[in-house]
């Protein structure tokens, strides 16, 4: 065990002295997180509420229509496009440039003509939504109008019976204003809350994705490090010391594990404080998954070393492996964008387990649900070590031939 720690310490010292490689391992994921997080912010954060685009044509400046468009439809979750004439609106609908269209006739205010809703093929729900919006507005208007008239009539009757004089225009205007303000007031009694998991932001997603992807490079670096020892004969020299082959490999593994976890810690800290990425409420959960994932990646390093002939093939094959795993594991595109088959493939990939676990922690999860992921990651690492060590021990005993 002591010799394993010695070898691991030596590997860490060598790695820390190679400043270029070390900075690359830290800077690259940080930069990619920043770039992808900012670039895909709109795409990922727009998914929670779909932005509706409604086209509107108001015939000859109908006042009620103007009121509807200029005030009622001005919402954060709506985009309003005004057409100059009805044909233009119909053209937008035909070309599916909008989700639904509304034509507001001149005599809409007098209820002589109805508003016309234009549905886009395949977006009938948007047409229904637009119709409900229009109905809601017109019913509110006509209710207010009818109420005002009733109040005014009663007031006039009462005043004439008492012989008093009233100012009907002033009263009507005040009444209308109060009712309008009441109708438009945003209810303080409404609280918006989400049930179930919170959504992760693009910055959070890509911080987790880049951590999962760039930690994988430790598998390549670890594998290459063993080949470097072989090439520079230091591996032979290590084997000439009174140290078992298993302890030499164990030391190399331990070094890779410590470096991978260290890289994760620095990356997590940098994204937390420089990019303000929220890694979730439980730092302990994140660290546990980070530790388990680093273990899995270090196991893969033993496999890479065992199944590659030299440093060059380890570099090439390892590089391809990282790219494929990153793509299939959701580090480049969110797993939710993948078809079902691909999502099933991702279930055997350590980076996919790590990524899913990190995002689960970000949205809030329990230790029980994280346990399975941690176990899978440790199992992948352990299986890789067993297979890789068996093969390398075989090669060593045959004298490397």
């Amino acid at each position, binding site marked *: 065990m002591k010799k394993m720690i010695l070898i691991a310490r030596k590997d860490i010292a060598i790695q820390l002295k190679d400043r270029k490689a070390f900075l690359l391992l830290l800077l690259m994921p940080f930069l990619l997180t920043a770039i992808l997080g900012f670039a895909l912010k709109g795409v990922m954060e727009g998914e929670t509420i779909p932005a509706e685009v409604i086209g509107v044509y108001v015939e000859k400046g109908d006042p009620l229509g103007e009121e509807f468009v200029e005030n009622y439809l001005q919402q954060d979750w709506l985009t309003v496009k005004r057409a100059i004439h009805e044909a233009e609106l119909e053209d937008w609908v035909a070309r599916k440039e909008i989700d639904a269209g509304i034509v507001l006739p001149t005599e809409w205010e007098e209820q002589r003509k109805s508003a016309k809703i234009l549905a886009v093929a395949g977006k009938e729900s948007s047409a229904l939504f637009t119709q409900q919006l229009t109905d809601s507005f017109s019913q509110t208007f006509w209710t207010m109008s009818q109420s005002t008239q009733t109040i005014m009539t009663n007031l006039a009757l009462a005043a004439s019976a008492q012989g008093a004089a009233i100012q009907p225009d002033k009263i009507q205007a005040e009444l209308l204003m109060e009712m309008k303000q009441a109708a438009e007031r945003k209810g303080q009694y409404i609280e918006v809350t989400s049930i179930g998991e919170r959504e992760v932001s693009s910055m959070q997603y890509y911080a987790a994705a880049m951590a999962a992807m760039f930690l994988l490079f430790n598998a390549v670096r670890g594998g290459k490090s063993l080949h470097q020892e072989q090439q520079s004969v230091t591996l032979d020299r290590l084997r000439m010391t*009174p140290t078992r082959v298993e302890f030499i490999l164990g030391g190399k593994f331990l070094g890779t594990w410590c470096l991978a976890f260290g890289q994760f810690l620095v990356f997590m800290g940098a994204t937390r404080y420089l990019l303000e990425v929220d890694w979730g409420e439980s730092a302990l959960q994140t660290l546990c998954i980070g530790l388990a994932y680093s273990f899995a990646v270090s196991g893969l390093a033993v496999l890479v070393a065992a199944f590659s002939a030299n440093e060059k093939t380890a570099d090439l094959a390892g590089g391809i492996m990282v790219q494929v795993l990153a793509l299939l594991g959701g580090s480049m595109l969110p797993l939710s964008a993948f078809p079902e088959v691909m999502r099933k493939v991702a279930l055997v990939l350590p980076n996919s387990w790590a990524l899913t676990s990190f995002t689960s922690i970000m949205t809030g999860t329990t230790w029980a649900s994280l346990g399975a992921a941690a176990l899978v990651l440790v199992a992948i690492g352990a299986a890789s070590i067993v297979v890789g060590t068996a093969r390398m021990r075989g090669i060593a005993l045959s004298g490397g031939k």
Partner: protein
Amino acid sequence: MLTMTQVKKCYGDQEVVKGVTLHVGRGEAFGLLGPNGAGKSTTISMICGLVPYDEGDIQVDGLSVNRSPYEIKKKIGVVPQDIALYPTLSALDNLLFWGKMYGLKGAEAKNRALEVLETVGLAERGKDRIETFSGGMKRRINIGAALLHRPELLIMDEPTVGIDPQSRHHILETVKNLNEQGMTIIYTSHYMEEVEFLCKRIAIMDHGQVIASGSTQELCKRLAGGNQLLLDVEEAGPAFVDKLKQLEGVEKVVSPQQSEIHLYVKQGQDMMASIVSIASEEAVKIRQIKLKEADLETLFLQMTGRSLRD
């Protein structure tokens, strides 16, 4: 200190070491010679426990290498042919690491590393990275890394390849001193003068076998005949070489090149007239004839038909 008995090693169908038997006594400096591919490196790897042997036995200080590899590794120090050091670490850090890998601890490891730096003449460069060292300095640290645990047997595989004369001299002096202090040395080199300087006994290996072993004086006397005549000729045909072989007193004729013929003879001076006469008969023009006393170089060439550096 070291006994090899009928040791064999095969890689697949190829037998690379064919029943090697050797004995190296405690405190002895022993030279192992052989051209490239003779089986020296495999033999050394088997002694160090890097490669398991298939048949026979190797014993170091009475312990079998295959059965007690870790006990034996504590007694052996190996200087590999290549520089087996970490270039980005300092000389001191390298020595500390290797010392600890041999079981030295804390202050003991540090003191020993400083002592070894002194021994190899690099005490002032301890904190410098290996990558900043010259070839000769790297070789000296490479040797130093094998000395940290005070091995009883030091195996050196061509430790002076590609270095400047000053560093080579320093290394040879260091090894000689270590041997004089009682350390057993097994030394392989392509430089005969190094082997002659350091070793009292040698073994010559070729094609996986020991073809001769004994003291250098014994071997030169026994195998080379006495003198060597070096002929520098223009286009020597096979008939000329055949006639030379039939001359009385000629032990062996080797022709490494068409223009170069080596004759191993009892009395070189007596043969010259006969050689010139044969050359005249065969119309071979002799440019130069040299008479040389037999040494390891000539011995090696005679035995293997190849120069050590081929």
